[in-house]
């Protein structure tokens, strides 16, 4: 029988283990020995972080720096000498102290780690070959690193049907290792609180209340839990097969559009460093896959800016509610509908760029090309699972067609490219098709936090003053802090704007609005960092990339900025394709036709769908308020 570890109680960590980032703060350091090496680390850091800071790798599973530090999986066990005896400790939660002696790779530590992983695997549907996370799974990697060849523990296994009934996220409880990273990110970062540990012991599940499907609860479909999950327990709902079918159908004209952020993230799936711009190869790959037209959502982002900037000016003029809240992030829109329905009227009525794109493709583009709109299939390559939900909303489309037929995440596109055997590295750069592929730098920066407001202000400034804004004036739009606010001078008026990303930060902003603070315009994106941190972006489960992709969002955002700088056109209103579409088809921003095709409405959804107070207590709810 393998050794089962005994646990000594873990002392409290005073500060989360992210102290390395704040070296300007004066702090006490301690000296300790890890594997015979002397290591100096700030007091209160965990052993794991101290070891990683000097390049000693300790495996971990449940640990997510600063987000989930609960010490539950025990695969990070190390030997720590306490008062002359060796004890096993979870290094991710054990704080360093002066003179501590740690062994990370002693035979005993390794043996016990293996036991821990074997226990996890003993209740795991091990189907690696057919699993979405195959070759990109943290559990699989650890099992491989530790050389686990057979599992000594056999016994009952959980066997729960797969939850596959919604258009955005699929859940396989049989691959869940109960690390609770999904729960932590959903409640601490997004503050949506969907998950909790239900039940106890072997039966325990990390699940939404009452084991409901994500589509039945107040989930904003952002997919942050998907990128946090180390295994294949939470994955996007794939629709690759449907896209292949459309491509195969000779009768269909298949149009693809790529969101601004895809050009700076897709490369990661093919081994390029984070922040590599692969626009040309992306376009080439899509042509090889057989799409009839390859367009950029950046184009319709420019259009969104035209509409939204005009909407802002209209509202500043006294028509409609202030502050105007951006509506291009469907996760954020759903968040508002569930938790802050009183702000629904503040939401911009603009559809999000990919929906505008779909609507125009099936009208304007179809007319121009003489195509039957019912034969056009619009595929959108998007950074996020919420776009899958958005495309399925009944508001988006007409009786005859949906604006957007299929949404693929960045990850799914990478899989399609691999399926087709396309050698991504060897592709030569190609350009987007015209006219719906022409875009300005303003459209590109839509993909990261602050980008929408910066783009809209560039245009609003021009519309009010007749002059072009100096682009260096407002660089502070793009900082990484979760909630930013600043003042912007338009012609007669100085307006107060705010930028929030991550719905936790959105809560902070909306609570201030609730308590009466005045703003004119706010940009809110559901995902931390905006689309570059979206729930559909590449995930790293490989050995050298253990951090969740969230941590890479800054490099990706920088790449989008580089695209913006490199463009000749940097303002939406300068985009010739946008000008032309207004001339030929839409008339002017906010025209009746624009309103019909490019704008939408929203619906309150309740904090706890299906359990509204009045339904709970029948007609007698008069007692209850």
């Amino acid at each position: 029988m393998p050794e089962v570890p005994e646990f000594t109680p873990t002392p409290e960590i005073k500060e989360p283990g992210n102290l390395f980032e704040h070296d300007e703060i004066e702090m006490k350091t301690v000296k300790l020995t890890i594997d015979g090496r002397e290591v100096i680390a700030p007091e209160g850091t965990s052993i794991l972080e101290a070891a990683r800071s000097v390049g000693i790798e300790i495996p971990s599973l449940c640990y997510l720096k600063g987000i989930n530090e609960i010490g539950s999986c025990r695969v990070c066990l190390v030997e720590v000498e306490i008062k002359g005896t060796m004890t096993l400790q979870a290094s991710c939660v054990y704080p360093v102290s002066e003179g501590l002696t740690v062994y990370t790779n002693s035979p005993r530590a390794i043996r016990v780690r293996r036991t821990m992983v074997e226990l996890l695997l003993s209740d795991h549907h091990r189907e690696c070959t057919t699993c979405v996370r195959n070759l990109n799974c943290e559990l699989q990697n650890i099992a491989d690193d530790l050389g686990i060849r057979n599992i000594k523990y056999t016994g009952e296994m959980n066997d729960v049907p797969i939850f596959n009934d919604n258009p955005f996220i699929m859940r396989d409880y049989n691959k869940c290792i109960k690390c609770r990273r999904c729960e932590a990110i959903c409640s601490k970062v997004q503050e949506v609180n969907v998950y909790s540990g239900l039940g106890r012991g072997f039966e325990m599940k990390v699940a939404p209340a009452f084991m409901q499907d994500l589509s039945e609860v107040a989930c904003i479909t952002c997919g942050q839990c998907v990128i946090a999950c180390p295994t294949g327990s939470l994955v996007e709902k794939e629709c690759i097969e449907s896209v292949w079918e459309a491509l195969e159908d000779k009768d269909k004209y298949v149009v693809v559009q790529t969101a601004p952020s895809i050009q700076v993230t897709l490369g990661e799936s093919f081994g390029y460093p984070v922040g590599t711009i692969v626009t040309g190869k992306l376009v080439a790959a899509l042509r090889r896959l057989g799409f009839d037209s390859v367009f950029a959502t950046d184009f319709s982002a420019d259009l969104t800016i035209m509409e939204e900037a005009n909407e802002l000016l209209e509202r500043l003029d006294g028509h409609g509610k202030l502050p105007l809240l951006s509506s291009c992030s469907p996760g954020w829109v759903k968040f508002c509908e569930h938790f802050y329905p009183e702000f629904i009227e503040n939401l911009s009525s603009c559809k999000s760029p990919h929906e505008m794109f779909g609507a125009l493709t099936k009208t304007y583009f179809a007319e121009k090309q003489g195509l039957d709109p019912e034969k056009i299939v619009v595929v959108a390559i998007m950074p996020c699972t919420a776009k899958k939900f958005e495309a399925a909303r009944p508001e988006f489309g007409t009786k005859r067609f949906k604006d957007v037929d299929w949404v693929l995440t960045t990850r799914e596109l990478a899989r399609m490219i691999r399926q087709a055997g396309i050698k991504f590295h060897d592709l030569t750069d190609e350009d987007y098709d015209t006219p719906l592929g022409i875009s300005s730098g303003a459209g590109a920066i839509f993909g990261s936090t602050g980008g929408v407001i910066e783009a809209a202000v560039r245009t609003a400034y021009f519309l009010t003053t007749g002059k072009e804004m100096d682009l260096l004036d407002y660089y502070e739009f793009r900082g990484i802090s979760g909630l930013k606010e600043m003042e912007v001078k338009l012609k007669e008026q100085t307006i107060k704007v705010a930028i929030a990303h991550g719905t936790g930060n959105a809560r902070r902003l909306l609570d201030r609005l609730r308590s009466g603070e005045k703003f004119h315009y706010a940009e809110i994106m559901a995902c931390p960092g905006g689309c570059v941190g979206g729930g559909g972006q590449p995930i790293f489960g490989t050995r050298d990339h253990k951090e969740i992709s969230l941590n890479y969002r800054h490099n990706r955002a920088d790449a989008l900025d580089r695209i913006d700088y490199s463009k000749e056109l940097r303002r939406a209103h300068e985009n010739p394709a946008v000008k032309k579409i207004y001339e030929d088809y839409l008339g002017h921003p906010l025209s009746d036709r624009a309103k019909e095709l490019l704008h939408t409405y929203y619906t309150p959804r309740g904090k706890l769908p299906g359990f509204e107070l009045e339904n709970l207590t029948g007609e007698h709810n008069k007692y209850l308020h």
Partner: protein
Amino acid sequence: MKATTEQEYPHSEQGIVPLLPKTETKPEKREMVDTKDHKYRELDKILDHYRGEKGELIRVLHSAQKIFGYLPPEVQAYVALKMDIPVSEVNGVVTFYTLFVTEPKGKHTISVCMGTACYVKGAREVMDKLKDELKLDARETSADGMFTLRSTRCLGACGMAPVMTVDEEVHGKLNAGDLTGILKIYQEQDAGEEHDQVH
């Protein structure tokens, strides 16, 4: 393996002493309290008493269980909305403590001993037969609300194995053939009671 949730809830199961407000449900008001509406009004009084104190969730749930007899999803959701606590957290607490039940309890509770002695002497068969007889699948309570079926650890009556209790009464040396008869005793007893009430 270690249940990771255990460290996270500060209260131990035994340590919960519900402090009920004075206005608590009195048994004599039974007919009134029986309507759903009145039950929610009772629950409101409890919620008012603990107004805003999220740390009192367990006590509130305990009181709610006393009022409703069990904690169905609607009641958990109601508590979550009223206390402004995520329903996932409420459901987590309810499913963590065995003290809470989420299904109505039947009029009679049958506990089949699954201790070693009873197991060896055929407790499994007794269990299966009862499930069959009461048409239970995953549920614990029969559709007519008459019986709730549970398993239990050694009852200390190993000499009579296999053993089960119905409410307080112990039935020993069981075999599958006896069970229909035993269930019948309780069914008839109840039918008699109802008959008495009508007159």
